[in-house]
């Protein structure tokens, strides 16, 4: 049984109390319904990675590391570099996480983070080609979940975005002999936009942002939207076996769009600070 589902069993009794608070516009930890916990972002923490970032949202803590390697393109996209986003929910991160291959929740998490980056075209994969159809740059973003207290979707997404945005790579060129030459000079990885994901939890009939583990344990549904610099939606994912009525779907987009604007400033600042 997955960590989240176990938590559901344990904490079901807590729901009434949380709902009562929410109905008064309050949360157990004193936040308003649409308030994030403090967000702390550090970049450049892993010298061996091309880019890295540690994101803490309240007690949730994740680290993302980017490795840029040289690989072969997929046969059906010879003109595209590779982007691989992988998330490991480490057994360090909570009493419910187990060692082993990722379960369906970890796979969904990784795929939703991946789609946010991919669909926003944050990185122009066509610019990562070295030799058409043969050699391309491959961007691996690995996210380690270190401490779980809710909102992994956003935390993993912010760490991924911050680590990509601050990545550098050796300048490389293709010699006349078809060999790839990597120079000592390091250049920043070009990015096109900063995608921001916002995840709402629906508990009873209320939406909240940035849910804690305790809130996630009693939430009915979860919905994530990712926005680009222009406020356009680039990815969406509803999760959990609860429902949203049709107006709630539209309301969710509105809330998420407004929050994304706010969070964008925090992420942008951390990237700017890193680039000096």
């Amino acid at each position, binding site marked *: 049984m997955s960590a989240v589902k176990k938590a559901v069993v344990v904490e079901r009794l807590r729901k009434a109390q949380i709902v009562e608070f929410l109905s008064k516009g309050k949360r157990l930890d004193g936040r308003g319904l649409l308030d994030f916990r403090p967000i702390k972002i550090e970049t450049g923490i892993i010298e061996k990675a091309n880019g890295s970032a540690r994101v803490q949202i309240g007690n949730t803590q994740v680290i993302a590391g980017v490795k840029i390697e040289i690989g072969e393109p997929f046969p059906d996209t010879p003109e595209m570099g590779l982007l691989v986003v992988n998330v490991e929910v480490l057994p360090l991160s909570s009493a419910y996480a187990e060692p082993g291959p990722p379960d*369906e929740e970890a*796979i969904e998490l990784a795929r939703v983070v991946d789609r946010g980056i991919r*669909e926003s075209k944050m990185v122009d994969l066509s610019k990562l080609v070295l030799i058409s159809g043969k050699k391309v740059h491959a961007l691996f973003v690995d996210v380690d979940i270190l401490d779980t207290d809710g909102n992994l979707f956003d935390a993993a997404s912010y760490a991924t975005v911050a680590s990509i945005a601050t990545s550098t790579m050796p300048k490389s060129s293709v010699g006349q002999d078809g060999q790839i030459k990597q120079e000592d000079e390091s250049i920043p990885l070009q990015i096109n936009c900063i995608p921001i994901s916002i995840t709402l939890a629906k508990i009873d009939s209320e939406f909240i942002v940035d849910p804690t583990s305790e809130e996630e344990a009693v939430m009915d549904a979860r919905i994530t939207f990712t926005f680009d610099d222009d406020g356009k939606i680039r990815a969406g994912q*509803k999760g959990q*076996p609860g*429902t949203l009525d*049709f107006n709630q779907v539209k309301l969710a*987009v509105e809330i998420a769009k407004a929050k994304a604007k706010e969070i964008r400033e925090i992420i942008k600042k951390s990237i700017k600070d890193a680039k000096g």
Partner: protein
Amino acid sequence: MVELIDEKGLRMDGRRVDETRPIKIEVGVLKNADGSSYIEFGKNKIIVAVYGPKEVHPKHLALPDRSILRCRYHMAPFSTDTRKHPQPSRREIEISKVISEALEPALILEEYPRTVINVYLEVLQADGGSRCAGITASAVALADAGISMRDMVVACAVGKISGKVVLDLDDTEDKEGEADMPVAIMPNLNQTTLLQLDGILTPEEFEKAFEMAVNACRHIYEVQRKALIDKYFGEDEVGEE
């Protein structure tokens, strides 16, 4: 970029922007399953079997107050343009999860404590929108299995191609288009049970697209109903071309 809508506003296969592909649903196509269905939705061909409610193994996984729903979306190796390895991919595992979460709200699982209900989807041929077709067929198979339901679940994707919001993308439109958004609803309770989105939509386009999907779902719901009625009460030819 391929031009996907012509000057008359028609798509490559002749459909209007708000038109679904042909749909055909059959009920009770497998003998061993407790419930089963078969759907053709465009070039999608999907067969669904429901087994359960039955005892959970190992027993400690059983829930004392309700049944567990497990879905498995699997693609036949010959269902895709290039042969797919039989082992489930990460994509299939994610889709299995969202299908399960799309169906669960409609099921009265509390009626079957300590049991499991398995829903197996086999995609015999894959086209754009296979998860939606799979959800639509699964709900029919669950009904065929006699599982107590609050409502049906019905799904349809909507998206954007050549800058226009359009209904029900096929494979080419999905690949060449700008956005794809699968939606599942409970048509009588007016609830959304699945929503995913890849691509680029303004909030205004999102709203328009979502409404288009909901309307299409209501239409597909009628096909579901007819298939079930034909099996249980009638002899008519099932389906709609």
